[in-house]
């Protein structure tokens, strides 16, 4: 792995009110890699991503992005720095059209030509979105909404893209094509991807490295391949 991590969490404690979801998380993501975070329901996966993105601020510990401490930076300042999340449940704006959703992905940008070019690019990645561009986001199917959420995130020009449960509630055939696109995004634009999944098998097959999260703590860190072959992991997360 290249030397400097692009994103690093050091002993981060975080949570909602009196509920402490994270009890000292430390992890590193290196430029250009796909990193998987796997764990059961309620392990703190989503909270980890929300804490990185500034929606929840850590009570303790430090978060570094490109060597800069970002603990206290408000959430809306992070996408312009290249940090973007596709949250769990996709959260597209249901009463905005597909096109409006995409334009808002580029909300902070003012480079008209660049935005138009990226719009063309995401439409070529997801042709179905072009067909549905005038339709309200809420009328799309689950798979189309996931594509829209990914496309909207790409419009922010992310350097680090956080994906929360991209497979949630989708048909297996659609899940496969979404994961192919995720791998493509990583390869073609050198975007670092942090992938949070309950579907550990799929996540570890796509990622190069992985962390295992249990009740707010990292219990294991290894290459994706080793994790896939780890007997405990297979038993706990891969249903064997």
């Amino acid at each position, binding site marked *: 792995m290249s030397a400097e991590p692009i994103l690093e969490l050091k002993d981060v404690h975080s949570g909602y009110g009196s509920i402490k979801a994270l009890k000292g998380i430390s992890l590193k993501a290196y430029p250009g890699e796909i990193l998987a975070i796997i764990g059961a329901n309620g392990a703190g996966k989503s909270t980890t991503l929300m804490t990185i*993105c*500034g*929606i929840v601020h850590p009570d303790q510990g430090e978060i570094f992005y490109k060597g800069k401490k970002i603990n206290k930076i*408000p*959430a*809306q*300042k*992070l*996408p*312009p720095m290249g940090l*973007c*999340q596709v*949250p769990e*449940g996709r*959260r*597209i*704006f*249901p*009463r*905005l059209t597909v096109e*409006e959703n995409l*334009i*808002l*992905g580029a*909300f*902070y940008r003012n480079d008209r030509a660049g935005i138009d070019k990226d719009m063309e690019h995401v439409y070529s990645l997801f042709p179905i979105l072009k067909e549905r561009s005038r339709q309200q986001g809420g009328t799309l199917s689950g798979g189309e909404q996931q594509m829209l959420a990914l496309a*909207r995130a790409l419009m*922010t020009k992310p350097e680090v893209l956080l994906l929360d449960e991209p497979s949630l509630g989708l048909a297996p055939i659609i899940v496969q094509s979404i994961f192919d696109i995720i791998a493509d995004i990583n390869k073609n634009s050198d975007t670092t991807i942090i992938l949070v999944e309950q579907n550990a098998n799929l996540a570890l097959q796509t990622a190069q490295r992985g962390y295992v999260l249990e009740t707010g703590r990292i219990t294991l860190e290894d290459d994706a391949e080793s994790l896939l072959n780890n007997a405990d992991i297979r038993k706990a997360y891969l249903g064997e």
Partner: protein
Amino acid sequence: MDYFIQQLVNGLTLGGLYALIALGYTMVYGVIFLINFAHGEFFTAGGYIGVIALSYCIAHGYTQTHPFLCLAGAFSLAMIYSAYLAVGVEKIAYLPLRGSRLAVLLSALGMSIFLQNGMMLTQGVMDKAYPGELFEGGFSFGMVTISYLQIMIITMTVLLLFGLNRLVYKTKIGMAMRATAQDKTMSALVAIGSNNIISLTFAIGAGLAAAAGVMVGLYYGSVHYDMGFNLGMKAFCAAVLGGIGNITGAMLGGLIIGLVEVFGAGYISGQYKDVFAFIILIGVLYYRPTGIMGENIDETRV
């Protein structure tokens, strides 16, 4: 028939004014689920700034030389003043309490009383008369009279409503406003600062109310420190009638309330003028609890 048309024109004039005020209620509700009780006071404040500006113009004789400039100046000053007032109120009295919806609601009630008393102390308890000489005369068709003032009010209202519609539905900032209303967390994740958008919403709503304040002052000939209560209440009815949170609904609701009130007063009894708006409201809500254009008002709106 002449009488009907006359009432129709009067009703549209009044309805447009209600619509302008109702928009502030509905837009603020749309983004932070707050019934902003202080909104009526932004309307009154606009009315006072208008009368102060126009009186100044008349005292210096500018209305003779530049009548349009005076009017434009009065409208702009009133709208800008109320917009800043609303943003200030939001920052001081609502933002720190936003964790609890009930606390903000009570704070809004308090601000309403505070602002109303502030205007009473600074402007006095007597009516302040608007200069009437700016709009004298009108067109007559048989028995129907449409005053120049009514034409100005209807034109101005249409322009403002049209402008607002363009802003909300055609611009990027309007998209961001709608996005913030739908999902604040997700908005933050695409770099939209929800506090800025909320401030902007308050400013726009108060600006529209202030314009209505100047026009109400011109139409009725005076302003009074507590006129925001009565008109605000009816505009709030209009917003609920149209479906609170819905911009088109507020415009529609305002027109309906205005027409019902004028026709009710004209054909049934002027004494019950204020009652008709509420009767219609109850009637509509009985069959459509979310209002005419109402959306499903669930908590998350995801």
